[in-house]
């Protein structure tokens, strides 16, 4: 899974969000490292919707502009959980291997 996809799904894990909310949340989750642009975001949202990993939650009109909220589907939640577990397991192995090396260095 690409990092941008992982971060978008993570942004939606806590509840439904609209496009700009996702961009802001992704930036916050990645500590400012990942700044999604609108084109990239909507390509990803379209793909995730086609794969039934996210769905439209509701629509609102704010200042006469459409605001569409997206949410995770159960399949999207399962995929995110599996990916997070995989990354966590890899990170645990990496950290455990770095500890002895760090011990030798100090």
């Amino acid at each position, binding site marked *: 899974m690409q990092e941008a996809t992982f971060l978008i799904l993570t942004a939606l894990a806590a509840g439904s969000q*609209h*496009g*700009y909310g996702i*961009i802001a949340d992704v930036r916050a989750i990645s500590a400012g490292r990942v700044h999604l*642009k*609108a*084109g*990239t*975001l*909507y*390509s990803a949202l*379209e*793909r995730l919707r*086609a*794969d*039934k990993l996210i769905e439209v939650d509701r629509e609102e009109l*704010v200042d006469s*502009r*459409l*605001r*569409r909220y997206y949410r995770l589907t159960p399949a999207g939640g399962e995929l995110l959980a599996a990916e997070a577990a995989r990354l966590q397991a890899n990170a645990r192995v990496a950290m455990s291997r770095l500890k002895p090396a760090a011990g030798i260095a100090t």
Partner: protein
Amino acid sequence: MSDSADLERRYRRLLACYPRAFRHEHEQEMLAVLMTGADEGQERPGLGEAADLFRSAIWMRLRPVVRRSQPTVFWAVRLMYFCAVFKLLGVPILPATRGSGAYPLDVGIGWGVFALLAWTNSRGHHWARVLFAVWVAFHTAALFYDVAHVSASSAPAWTLIASVVFWLVEFAAVVLILSKQSGAYFRHESAQM
């Protein structure tokens, strides 16, 4: 005209690069996101943002649109592309099965026809589905003709095997593309056009 109206007009011009169906679905909300993210007094889209929109629009036009969530169309289209590659590689098959034209011409046209049918079927064009079924029906008749005459012809037996393999792939693709699940995909895509 205000800065904001100028900026919106320029964003709309960039969004016009997207396919019509995508624009119909997302233009308003994308515009809202772009305008919300714009700086105070900004008149033009940033270079990076414009490049991202353009790249994304090109990708939306060229991307494979059939996802694994529509398995029958997904695999039918891949089998059609397989047929295109089979033709492009110029694997010799029986004369009637490959058509009545000269062989190099058949290879040149054959792979293009399969590639075009694969692309148009993936985009949910109902006529492409019908055309592919007609095309396979023609090849089926041609294969039966070849099987009946192969012993009398000078063609090596392995070309018969290649023809049967090719036909089986075509047949699998046509069964998948004519299935009920594929029908739902074509109806949905036609409604979006």
